C-alpha cells in the first residue's frame, strides 16, 4: 500500500512534469523499453552517465539522439572504432594563425565538449581511448597538453555496447565501468512492439520531437532540477540499508577488504562474485533513489526507491567469476539475492 502525495512544491512538480514530457517525447521514437527510458532520465537528473547495452537495431543510438533533441541540449556523437585516438575525443592543440599573422598553438575542443555525448559502441575502441572519457565523466573537465578545460554542465555521457558481437572489441576497464551510474539494457522488442516500430518508422512522415526547454535555458533548467534532486532527504536507516546492500555485494573473501566481513553474507556472492560494487555504487543508488522519490511526489527516499534502482546501479559494478559464467548466473540474479538477504537481515 502506498499513499499518494497530497501536497505539491513547485520545484517537485516541475521536475515531475519535465521528466514525463521528456519521457513522452522519447517514446515517440522509441517503442517499448519504458523501464530503460525511465532509468536513462533518472541518471540524467541525478547527474550520472549511462551505459546502454543492447543488440543491434534495438534503438540505442536513436534513444540517445531523441533525448538530446527533447532536452534541446548540445549533442555529439562519437563512433568508437579501434583506430580512434584519445585526442579525437578530448580535442587537441593545433597551430592556428592569429589576427596579427603569428601562428600559435590553440586548443581545438573535441566532441566531448557538449551536453550530451553519445559514445557509440564504446567497446570497439582501445582501452587507452576509452579512458579518455574518464576525466570528462568524473570531473567534467579535460586536460590536454598540461591545460585543463572545463566542460559546461550539464554533461551527460551515454555509451552503447553491443553484447553479442565481441570480436575486435575491448572490454571496458573496471574503472571506466564504475564511472557509469547505470547500465541500462534495451530489450529486443516483442511482436506487438516490433509491429509498432515498423509502422512508425517506415512511413513517409515521422513524428517530430518537440523540445521540452528553450535552447537558451535548457542547461540552466536541468541544472536547477539536478540541484533539487540533491535536496531530497535520506533517513539514516535508508543510508544504512544502502551501505549494507553495497557491502553485501562483496564476497567475504574479497581482496582489499582487510578481512572484514559485512553484516550480511550471501552464498551466491561468495561463490560467483570476484569483486563487488565500489562506493560509487552506493552513491548511484542514493542519487537514483532521490530522483525516484521526487517522481513519486516525495521529498524523502524510501527503501522501495533504493530497491527499484538497485539492478541498474549495481549490475555493471559486480565482477563475476568463471563459475558464474559456467553456471549461467547473471549479475542481476546476484543483485536480487543480495536485496533479499539485506531485507531479511533488516527484519
Amino acid at each position: 500500500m502506498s499513499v499518494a502525495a497530497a501536497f505539491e512544491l513547485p520545484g517537485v512538480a516541475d521536475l515531475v512534469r519535465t521528466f514525463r514530457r521528456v519521457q513522452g517525447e522519447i517514446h515517440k521514437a522509441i517503442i517499448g523499453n519504458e523501464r530503460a527510458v525511465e532509468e536513462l532520465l533518472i541518471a540524467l537528473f541525478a547527474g550520472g552517465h549511462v551505459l546502454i547495452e543492447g543488440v543491434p537495431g534495438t534503438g540505442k543510438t536513436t534513444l540517445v539522439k531523441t533525448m538530446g533533441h527533447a532536452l534541446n541540449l548540445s549533442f555529439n556523437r562519437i563512433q568508437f572504432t579501434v583506430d580512434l585516438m584519445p585526442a579525437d575525443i578530448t580535442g587537441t592543440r593545433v597551430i592556428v594563425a592569429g589576427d596579427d599573422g603569428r601562428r600559435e598553438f590553440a586548443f581545438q575542443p573535441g566532441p566531448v565538449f557538449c551536453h550530451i555525448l553519445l559514445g557509440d559502441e564504446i567497446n570497439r575502441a582501445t582501452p587507452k581511448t576509452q579512458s579518455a572519457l574518464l576525466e570528462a565523466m568524473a570531473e567534467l573537465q579535460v586536460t590536454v597538453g598540461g591545460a585543463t578545460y572545463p566542460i559546461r554542465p550539464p554533461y551527460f555521457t551515454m555509451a552503447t555496447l553491443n553484447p553479442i558481437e565481441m570480436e575486435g572489441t575491448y572490454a571496458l576497464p573496471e574503472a571506466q565501468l564504475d564511472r557509469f551510474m547505470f547500465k541500462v539494457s534495451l530489450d529486443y522488442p516483442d511482436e506487438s512492439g516490433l509491429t509498432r516500430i515498423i509502422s512508425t518508422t517506415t512511413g513517409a512522415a515521422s513524428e517530430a520531437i518537440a523540445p521540452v526547454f528553450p535552447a537558451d535555458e535548457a542547461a540552466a533548467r536541468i541544472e536547477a532540477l539536478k540541484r533539487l534532486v540533491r535536496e531530497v532527504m535520506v533517513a539514516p536507516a535508508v543510508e544504512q540499508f544502502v551501505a549494507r546492500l553495497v557491502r553485501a555485494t562483496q564476497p567475504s573473501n574479497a581482496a582489499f577488504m582487510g578481512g572484514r566481513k559485512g553484516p550480511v553474507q550471501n552464498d551466491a556472492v561468495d561463490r560467483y562474485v570476484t569483486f563487488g560494487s565500489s562506493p560509487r555504487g552506493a552513491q548511484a543508488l542514493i542519487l537514483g533513489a532521490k530522483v525516484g522519490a521526487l517522481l513519486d511526489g516525495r521529498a524523502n527516499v524510501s527503501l522501495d526507491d533504493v530497491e527499484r534502482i538497485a539492478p541498474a546501479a549495481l549490475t555493471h559494478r559486480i565482477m563475476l567469476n568463471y563459475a558464474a559464467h559456467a553456471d549461467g548466473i547473471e549479475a542481476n540474479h546476484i543483485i536480487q539475492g543480495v536485496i533479499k538477504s539485506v531485507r531479511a537481515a533488516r527484519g
Partner: protein
Amino acid sequence: MPSASQVRRGEEKLGVILRGVVLVRTRLNRLALQQGLFESLSLIVGTGAIVLLAAFLLQPLKFLCVAIVLGAALMVGLVRAIRRSSRMRATLDRAAAIADQRTGLKGRLTTVVSLAPYATGRGQLWPYLLEDTLSLREEFAPAKVEPRRISRSIYGLLAYSLLAILVAGFALMERRVQTASKAAQADLEVDVNNLDVRPLDPDLSTAVEVSGDPSAMRKLDQKLARAGQAQGESNSALGRLMGRARDLAGDIQDKMTGHDSRLRLRLRLTDSSGGNSGDDAADSSHTPPDGGAARSDRVGDNRAPGDSPSSQTTSSRSLAGAAPNPGEPAQDRAANNLADDPQAQGEGDEQGTGGSSHGSGSDPEHLFGPAEEPPLGSEGFEIMVEARPAERGPRGVQSYLPPRVRAALNPRQFPDQPIARSVVPDDDRAEVKRVFDR
C-alpha cells in the same frame, strides 16, 4: 531564508507529527509489554500446573526429573519471552518505521523523525516533507498502524489458565480423598521378633513411624544396625545421592499435594520375647545383609495377651528412608527368608514375604487374649499384598507378578471388617486349640 513565522509553523507541524508517532510508539510498547507479561505468566502458570500434576501422578524421582526439566525450560522460556518483548519495544525511530511500513507512507515518518533533531540535514525540501506528511496524518493514527489493543498472547495465557484450573480441581479432589483416607488410618502393632528389615522399595513412598517399649526399640536398633552395616557395604555414593534426591522430591511432593507420605503408617513395636537376645540372634539369621527399611510382617497378630500398646510405648522413631537402596532381588531375599526362618516356614506362603495381615492370628500360643475393639478403621484401611509366586519356582524365572489394584466395591459388597479379638470361653479353649494344633 525562511522567516521566523515559517520556522515556527514548521516546528508546530513537526510537533504534531512527532506527537502522532509518540502515540503509535505508546501503543506498540503497550502491546510489547502485554506480550512479555502474558507470555511470562503463561509459562509460569503452565509450568506450575504441569509440575502440580506431576506431583500427584509421578514417583518422587521421576517427579524430580520432570520438575528440574520444566524449571529449566521455564527459566529459558522466561528469558526468551522477556527478550522478545524487549526486542518488540519501539523507540520513536522504530515506531516511525513500523508506521511507514504498515501504512504505506514510504519512509516519510522515518525521515521526519530521524532528521527532526538536525536542522542542518533538513534542506529546502524539509517544509515540503512536513506538509506532505502532515496531510497524511490520518494514515498513521495509532489505530490504523496497530489495530489491536490487547496482545494476542492473552489467548495463550487463557489456555494455560484453563489448564491450571483443571489441575487445581484435580489436586483439590485428590487432597480430599487423601484427607479422608488419612483420617481412617490407625496404628499397627507388630512383634519386633517378627520384624523383617529389608531394603525399601525405592518407588514406594510409604514410610513408617515406629514406637514401642525399650526392649523392642533396642532390638529394632540392633536390626537396623545390622541392616545399616550391610547397607554400608553395598551402598554407593550414587545410591546415597539418589536417596537424598528421592527424599527431597518426596518432601516437595508432600508439600504440593498436602500428603504426608512419611507418616502414613504408625507402627507400634512389641517384644514378645521380653528382651531375650536369643530371638535377636535368630532374627539376624534371616535378615538380609542388604536390608534397610522396616517392613512389617504379620502386622497386628501374635501380640501377647495383656500387652498394652499405650503402656509400652516409651520411644518412637521414624524409619522412613533408613536404608532405601535395594540390594539383592526381592525374590531371592524372600527365598532366603523362607529357608532360614523356621517360624516363617510353618506359617503359610505369605508370611515369608512381608505381607500384612490383621485380625485373629494363627499362632496357637497366642490364640486367646482379651477382647478388643477393631484396631483398624473399616473404610480407609489399605492392604498391601506382595504376592511373589516366583518364590516357589526355579530361581531366575520371572513369574507373573499381579499388579496392585484398588477396585471400588459394588453395592452388594461391604468394606473389609477386621475380626475383633473376643474372649473365648474357658470350656471352648481346649477345643479351639486342638483345631489349630491340627
